[in-house]
């Protein structure tokens, strides 16, 4: 029982951080398919820098790398006017390619053992603090109101004297911060970097955001639910529940299938921010 709870929490940590990253971006009106890529880049950079310069710089470099990716997305969508989904997808591809390239070229193949990182507890505290901080920020501050205004109706926000572009710039920096932490956690949790280690978590986080109706509390709960589904994979793999042992592929697919069902709207109605993807 305790085992399940702990596994769920550890599985939900990167999802919560990534979903909060998505929250900042999508609430400000920028569709962010690219969470996956930002996490992957962050994981790779944190692994490489942690090996060479220690764990603290590792995390900082991971955050910086994710912020840079975020800024490219801002530039592409807000300055060049590229479709948000296409920009996010190509950034994911670039990340998948770049991390494979960087890690095979720059890591020492003879090195073995865990990569020294900050303890996973640090990230788990962040994953609890982030939703609380965002909740307070959006509900209590002027900046939070601006964020939501830019995402709900950029045109009216502009008429009210706000600059949606600039609000989105800061929102995407926050996105970089959270997705950087999410990526670095994956390395802290497993102690290694492997190709494509995010394994769709960025997309699952987006699904949690959609499922949570773009609200902080509900999104975090959805992340916990997805974390629970992922923990089932480790708990029940190989044990026979229904007479025969279900294959491990079934348990791996469970969160993905749940995401599809969530998107079909069977788990509550959708409340997309009205200005999502608009300029």
């Amino acid at each position: 029982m305790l085992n399940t709870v702990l596994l769920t929490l550890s599985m939900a940590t990167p999802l919560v951080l990534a979903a909060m990253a998505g929250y900042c971006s999508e609430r400000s009106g920028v569709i962010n398919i690219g969470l996956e890529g930002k996490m992957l880049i962050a994981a790779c950079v944190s692994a490489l820098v942690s090996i060479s310069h220690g764990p603290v710089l590792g995390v900082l470099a991971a955050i910086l790398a994710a912020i840079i990716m975020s800024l490219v997305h801002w530039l592409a969508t807000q300055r060049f006017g590229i479709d948000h989904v296409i920009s996010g997808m190509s950034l994911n591809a670039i990340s998948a390619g770049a991390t494979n390239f960087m890690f095979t070229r720059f890591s020492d193949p003879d090195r073995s053992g865990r990569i020294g990182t900050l303890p996973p507890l640090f990230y788990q505290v962040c994953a609890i603090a982030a939703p609380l901080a965002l909740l307070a920020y959006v509900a209590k501050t002027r900046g939070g109101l601006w964020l939501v205004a830019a995402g709900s109706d950029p045109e009216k926000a502009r008429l009210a004297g706000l600059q949606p572009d600039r609000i989105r710039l800061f929102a995407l920096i926050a996105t970089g911060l959270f997705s950087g932490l999410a990526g670095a956690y994956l390395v802290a949790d497993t102690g290694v970097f492997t190709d494509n280690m995010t394994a769709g978590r960025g997309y699952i986080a987006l699904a949690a955001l959609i499922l949570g109706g773009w609200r902080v509390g509900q999104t975090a709960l959805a992340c916990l639910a997805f974390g629970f589904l992922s923990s089932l994979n480790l708990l029940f793999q190989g044990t026979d529940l229904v007479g025969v042992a279900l294959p491990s592929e079934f348990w791996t697919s469970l969160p993905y299938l749940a995401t599809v069902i969530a998107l079909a709207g069977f788990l509550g109605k959708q409340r997309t921010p009205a200005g999502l993807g608009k300029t």
Partner: protein
Amino acid sequence: MKQVVLIIACVVAFIGMLVLGGISPIEAAQTLFTGSLGSPRAISGSLKETTPLLLAGLGVFFALRAGLFNIGIEGQFLLGGFASALVALAVPGPAGLLLAMIAGIAAGALWALPAGWIRAYRNGHEVITTIMLNSVAVALTDFLVAGPARAANQTGATTATIPTSGRLPALLNSPPWNVSSGLLLGLILCGVMAWWMKRRVAGYELQAVGANPSAAEFAGINVRKVRLNAMLISGAIGGLGGAIQTLAFEGRFYQGFSPGYGFDSLGVALLAGSNALLVVPMSLLFGVLSKGGTSLLILGVPKGLTNLVAGLVILISATIRYRRQAQDA
């Protein structure tokens, strides 16, 4: 101007990555060329890589014209390849060949159905659903081919090999040249699609939905139905691509059947823009890159670099397309 700067920045970044990785860019370019176009054998190899990219690219292109981004082509390709291998093994001879192609088409369409339905009737974004379905497709085919569908005498996760009589014949087979009839099927499909989009009412309606769904709705087009059908046909073409891959080249289905054709075909379709006929040269470009990229592996260039370039190409082409639209407006 902005776009020119971006292209130069991308090229500089690419060369920078090569130099940082300790590889001479000139040597890399030479290897890429000789490995993909340097000999009849290399050209045949490039054409072999082009075939799945052409078919999957046409699938993505079709959905894209209806305003849908079918990232799920990878999963549809896998399911199509798997289903056709099963049918071709069960039914021998030319009849089996035909049935296997139909099975591939049906499997691809079936795998696209949830994403299409959710997009059309539940308003859930097709990009996320198709990505999820890709992961499920990989898990499902991995499981089936390692367990129930595995060949009895094989240790690896693969089906049995389809006998030659049940495969697509070669169009030209005089070594070192070898071109499969699968490529011809792709070219015919491309021509038919170009004609259909230009000359048929349904093709016009499809593109109207892609260009402006609310205007299309106002003009009396059933937008939801068009979207669902577009996704189904896109998946069917992806499934056909998988079937041709099985029946013309691989002769079997195994774990790791697609080394990312689905992803590269997104680049193919995006670069083709609004003209179906352009899918041919674009798939050729990616086919050459893919074949040449394999030769680059010998130089120690990781496979990820091809992915990286594909991503950059998509980003650049999207920027240029936007610019063209801005000039039109």
